[in-house]
C-alpha cells in the first residue's frame, strides 16, 4: 500500500498527460506546447524545490508569494540602472528574507507558520511601496533573457544541485533528520538552529531567483506579482505527493512532479476549452483526490 502511495503522483502525472492528450488530439504534446508548459512550470518548480528543504524539517514557508514580488521589484528597479545588477539583487533579497525567516523561527522560537505569514504581509506592503502601487517595466533588451535555453540550464542546474545537496550531503540528511525528530536529531549532533536558518536561506535564495525569472518573463514587476504564489507552491507539492505536515518523508521529486502537474493542468484545461468558471473547481477536485490518495493516515496518526 505504501508502495502504491509513493507512485500515486507519477500515475497522476501520466493520467493527466494521457487524458489531455486524448482530449486535445495530441496538441498537448506538440513541441511548442511542451515548451510553453515548461515556461510556465519553471518558476513554480524552482520555488517548490526551495520550499521542499523547509518542509523536510517539518516547517512551512508561506512567504514565497510576496518574496517573489519584492525580489522582482528589486530586480526591475536595479535593472533600470544596470541590467547586470538585477539578478544578484533579486537573489540577495531572497537570501536576506530567508535569513530573517530562519532566525525568527530558530532563535526566537516563533512557529514557522506565523513567522512566514507575517513576513508575507510585510513583504507585500514593501512590494506595493517599491512598485509605487503600480508596476516597474524592465528594459526591452532584457526580454531576450526570457530564453528557453537560459531557463532550461538554470532549471537543470538547480534540480541537480538541489538533488545532490538533498540526497548526498550532510546538509540534506541533517534537515530530514530534524523533520523526523528534532530532539533526537539534536541529540545525535545535528546543529538544529543553523540547519533551520540554512533551509530558509535556500528557500529564499531560490525564490529570489524565481523573482528574477518571473520579471524577465513578464517584462514587469507589479504590486500584484506573486500574489497567492505560496498557495500554488503548496498545491503543487501536495499534488507531487508531499505530506502537508512535511517531515523526513519529503521528497524532492514532489517539487518537480507537482510543478509539472499544476502547469499541465492549467494549460490542458485552456487547451480543452474548459470554461474559466469551471477551471478552479476542477483544480480543487483533483487536489482533493491527490491528497486522499497519497495521504498516509497511519504515519500521521503516529506522529501525533
Amino acid at each position, binding site marked *: 500500500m505504501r508502495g502504491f502511495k*509513493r*507512485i500515486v503522483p*507519477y500515475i497522476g502525472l501520466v493520467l493527466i498527460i494521457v487524458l489531455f492528450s486524448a482530449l486535445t488530439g495530441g*496538441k498537448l504534446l506538440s*513541441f*511548442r*506546447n*511542451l*515548451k*510553453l508548459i*515548461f*515556461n*510556465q512550470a519553471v*518558476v513554480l518548480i524552482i520555488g517548490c524545490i526551495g520550499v521542499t528543504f523547509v518542509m523536510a524539517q517539518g516547517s512551512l514557508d508561506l512567504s514565497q508569494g510576496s518574496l517573489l514580488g519584492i525580489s522582482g521589484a528589486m530586480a526591475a528597479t536595479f535593472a533600470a540602472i544596470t541590467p547586470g545588477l538585477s539578478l544578484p539583487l533579486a537573489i540577495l533579497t531572497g537570501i536576506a528574507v530567508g535569513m530573517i525567516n530562519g532566525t525568527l523561527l530558530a532563535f526566537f522560537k516563533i512557529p514557522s507558520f506565523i513567522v512566514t505569514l507575517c513576513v508575507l504581509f510585510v513583504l507585500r506592503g514593501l512590494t506595493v511601496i517599491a512598485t*509605487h*502601487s*503600480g*508596476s*516597474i*517595466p*524592465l528594459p*526591452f533588451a532584457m*526580454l531576450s533573457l*526570457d530564453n*528557453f*535555453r537560459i531557463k*532550461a540550464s538554470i*532549471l*537543470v542546474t538547480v*534540480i541537480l544541485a538541489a538533488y545532490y545537496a538533498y540526497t548526498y550531503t550532510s546538509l540534506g540528511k541533517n534537515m530530514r533528520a530534524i523533520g523526523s525528530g528534532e530532539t533526537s536529531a539534536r541529540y545525535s549532533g545535528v546543529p538544529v538552529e543553523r540547519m533551520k536558518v540554512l533551509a530558509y536561506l535556500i528557500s529564499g535564495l531560490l525564490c529570489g531567483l524565481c523573482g528574477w525569472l*518571473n520579471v524577465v*518573463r*513578464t*517584462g*514587469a*514587476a*507589479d504590486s*500584484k*506579482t*506573486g*500574489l497567492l504564489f505560496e498557495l500554488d507552491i503548496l498545491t503543487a507539492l501536495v499534488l507531487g505527493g508531499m505530506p502537508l505536515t512535511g517531515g523526513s518523508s519529503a521528497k524532492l*521529486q514532489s517539487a518537480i512532479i507537482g510543478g509539472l502537474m499544476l502547469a499541465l493542468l*492549467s*494549460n490542458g484545461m*485552456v*487547451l480543452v*476549452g474548459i*470554461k*474559466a*468558471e469551471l*477551471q478552479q473547481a476542477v483544480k480543487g477536485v483533483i487536489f482533493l483526490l491527490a491528497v486522499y490518495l497519497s495521504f498516509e493516515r497511519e504515519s500521521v496518526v503516529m506522529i501525533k
Partner: protein
Amino acid sequence: MKQHKIFCLVLTVAFSLMLFGGFSLFAEQAPKAEKAEKVEKVEKAKGPYLFGVSIWSDSGPLSKKVISNLRYAAGVLGAEVEVAVDGFKPDNQVSNIENLIARGCDAVMICNCTDAVVPKIVKLADEAGVPLALYFRKINDPEIKKYAESSPYFIGNVHEDEVAVGYNLGSALADKGCRNAVIINYNKGDTTAENRYKGYKKAFAEKGIALLGEQWDILDAEPAANAAESFIAAFPELDAIAVGGGGGGPLSGTIRAVKNHNKIGRIRITASDFGPDIAESLKNKEVAAMSGGHWTDPFFTFILLYNYVDGTPLSKKVETITMQPIYLTSVSEAQEYMKWCMDQPPYNDEEIKNMTVRHNSSFTLSDLRKIAAAYSLQDVIKRHK
C-alpha cells in the same frame, strides 16, 4: 525502492533530453516546423474562428457583461470566444496569452494590467503569428507604444476618452450649480484614474468650480467613507464630490458618508462605472451624474480582430479607437438605459453583421470609428426605436 529509483532516473534523463537535445533539434528544423504550422492554420480557417479573451475576473458586473456581450456578438458571426481569467496579475496575463495561443485561438485580446506587460505579450503574439489587440486600454509609455506598433501582429486598441469622462461629469456638476468640489480617486499612476482627474480639473477650471482637496489610492468603501467625512468636516462649503472610479466600493462609501451628515442633495456626487442600481441612486439624489455602459469597448476590439482574422483587415496600421461612455443624469435616462442597453443588445444582429467586411463589403475603419464615437444612450434609442 530500486524500481522507483530507476523510474526517476529515466524521467530525469528524458526530461534533460527534452530540454537540450529536443531544443537544438527543433532549432535546426525550425523552417520545416513553421511550414507545418501554416498548413494547419489554413485548415483551421474552415472551422469557426476562435477568439481568446484574457480578463481580470469573471464574476464582477462589468466583466460579466463584457463576456456575455462578446459571446453574443461572436454567436451572431458564427465565431467562438475562449475566456481566461488573469486577476490583473502580469504573470497570469502572460500565461493566459500563451495558453490561449496554444489553444489555437485565431486572435487574442486583453485588458493589460500595466503598460509594462505589453512588450512581452506583443512578443508572444509575434512569435506565434497571432493577432493581438487591447481593450479598455491605451499605451501611455511612448517607448512601449513604439515597440508595440513595430509589431506586425499588434492590431490596435480601444479605450474610452477618460479625459472627456472627467470633463463631462465635471461639467454636469457645474450645471447643477456646484461651486466647491473635492476629488476621491483610485491608484495614482493608473492611466484611467489620471486621465479622469485631468478631465475633472479642466472642467472645474473652465466652469469656475474650486477644487478644495483630493485623495488618492482609494479602492474600497471604508477608506472612501473616511476621506469623504474628513472633507465634509473640513469644508462646510463643500457641495460636490467627484469619485474617480475603482468599481462600486468608493462610491458607496462616499454616499454613506454624505448620508450620515444629512447632506444628500446638498452635496452632489459624480462617479464612473455605474452598476445596475443606477436608477435607484439617481432617484434618491445620491448621485448627480454617472458615466458607464462602456462594456461595449471590448466589442469594438473584437470587431477589429474579426475583420483582420477574416482576411479583410480594416487597416494596415496599428489603430486606436476612442469611444464614449454613456452619461446618466436623471432617473428617466437610467430607465431608458436599462431598457435599451441592458435588456437588449445595444447593437442588433443586423448591425453587428454590417460591421464586418464579409457581410458589408463597403465597411471601413472610419465607419467603425464613427459608430464607436457615436455610442450613447440617444444613439442606441434612435437606432432601435
